[in-house]
């Protein structure tokens, strides 16, 4: 079963911005990454899923139900954490959380206390007096207090210190183990790499690819750096399968995908003083993706 099924989702704002023909599924119980630079359409997609904005064409189903038509019903099982959180300033944290809980018709007070203890959140403070990071914590507790089946996160880690980020990720993993599916939107690849099973890459409103993180990582890409004894024209390595070719002094670096023997032969034909062959991290693959598609 799929928690989210997005099909040909299109949203246009007047002229330029928006998303075109976005389609992907988030399966039950998976952590799904949604990656793209700022302005690529991540938030637009998410806001449509939440029925905050309405699609121009196409649509999405959450738990098998149309996300617009059944929005209030679906919302019972969704926890949403926006990138920037704003709450009623003159309320205390606990009042805000209780108000939030009052929408779900179940007793959430135990969960509120658990979560705020984990996130080290002072419940008695006024929202107004909280720092950006602490407001974010309120957002996290607020998004998880009703134990949702689907957690939607829109660039959730901004403002959290690394320690809190780790706690937050652990929390998410726990929720995931309990069965919650997670849609994790971000422009920070390392956190997606750490958390997610699969990832959709979006660029300028279009989905470029949906892949397993492991496939992306394997994909036989090798990051190769060769230090030469003497200056060599970098085009020597410009064979098919080579990308991101760069030369600096006597060091030539590039990404390679293909038959390794070919490239090894090329290297062995040269007088080299050093060689590094590494697995590229997602970031580099990602930039490669963008360069290729662009």
């Amino acid at each position, binding site marked *: 079963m799929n928690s989210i099924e997005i099909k040909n989702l299109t949203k246009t704002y007047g002229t330029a911005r928006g998303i075109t023909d976005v389609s992907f599924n988030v399966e039950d119980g998976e952590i799904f990454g949604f990656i793209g630079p700022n302005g690529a359409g991540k938030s637009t997609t998410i806001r449509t899923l939440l029925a*905050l*904005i309405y699609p121009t064409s196409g649509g999405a189903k959450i738990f098998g139900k149309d996300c617009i038509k059944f929005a209030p019903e679906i919302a019972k099982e969704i926890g949403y954490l926006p990138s920037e959180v704003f709450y009623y300033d003159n309320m205390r944290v606990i009042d805000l959380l209780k*108000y939030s809980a009052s*929408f779900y018709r179940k007793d959430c007070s135990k969960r509120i206390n658990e979560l705020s203890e984990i996130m080290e959140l002072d419940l008695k403070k006024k929202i107004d007096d909280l720092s950006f990071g602490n407001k974010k914590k309120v957002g996290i507790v607020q998004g998880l207090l009703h134990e949702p089946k689907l957690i939607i996160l829109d660039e959730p880690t901004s403002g959290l210190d690394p320690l809190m980020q780790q706690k937050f990720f652990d929390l998410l993993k726990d929720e995931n183990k309990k069965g919650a599916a997670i849609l994790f939107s971000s422009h920070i690849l390392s956190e997606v790499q750490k958390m997610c099973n699969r990832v959709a890459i979006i660029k300028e409103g279009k989905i470029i690819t949906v892949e397993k993180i492991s496939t992306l990582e394997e994909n036989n890409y090798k990051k190769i750096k060769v230090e030469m004894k003497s200056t060599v024209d970098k085009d020597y390595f410009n064979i098919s399968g080579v990308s991101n070719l760069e030369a600096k002094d006597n060091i030539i670096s590039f990404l390679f995908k293909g038959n390794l023997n070919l490239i090894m032969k090329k290297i062995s034909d040269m007088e080299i003083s050093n060689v590094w062959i590494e697995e590229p991290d997602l970031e580099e693959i990602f930039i490669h993706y963008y360069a290729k598609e662009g």
Partner: protein
Amino acid sequence: MNMFLHELRAYRKSTIIWTCSLTTLVILFLSMYPAIAKDAADFKKILDNYPAAVIKALGFSLDSFFSLLGFYSATLTYVLLCGSIQAMNLGTSIISKEARDKTADFLLTKPVSRSQIMTAKLFAVLTSLVMTNVIYIIAASLMASAVQAEPINYKLFFMLSITVFFVQLMFMSLGIIVSVIVPKIKSVLPISMGTVFSFFIVSMLSSSIGDTTSRFITPFKYYDLMYIIKNSAYETPYIMIELLFIVTTITLSYIIYSKKDIHAV
């Protein structure tokens, strides 16, 4: 219910302030009545020297000005003005404040439909207005009975006083539809003050030139207090138009709000 109570709490402070202002206003005005009634003849002489247009614009009617109800009607013009600002403020705030305070994302991702949100907010505003009016009318009646020279007709007194609420309903509806149509309202007060004062000025001008067509335009003219005093009744056409206006604007507001894109902050 949770939303209703939350909203009600949000307007509590402003409701208290407005209620106090309206009450103070009527107490202040009515406390002058005994003095004015005593020197009625002298006052009449002074007022006779004023141009007729000015007298009308101020909401006075010389024949009845020195009866308590007549004097109260003149007072009501200003109570009406304040009450209208209160109502328009509330109406314009209810939806726009979520966008202004950036809390729309919080509320709209909760398991409630937009109509439910609108209904809760609408009832919270109505409750605030009703409470204001109840307290105002009690205070005004007590004050009136304290300063009366001869027994007053309380039914008429009530009929006059409640027009404040009726006019408020119109400005509230106007405020609500403005708040769902205008994409981003940075500040409510300029809009509500501007609108209310424009209508008030139109009504003053139309009074002084004795124009009747403008009665349909400005809510301030829907309830002719002199007519009510004379006939102990409201004018049906205006009530019908008011009802039509309120039902239309509120229905439209529901529809527009339900179809509106809520953009990120």
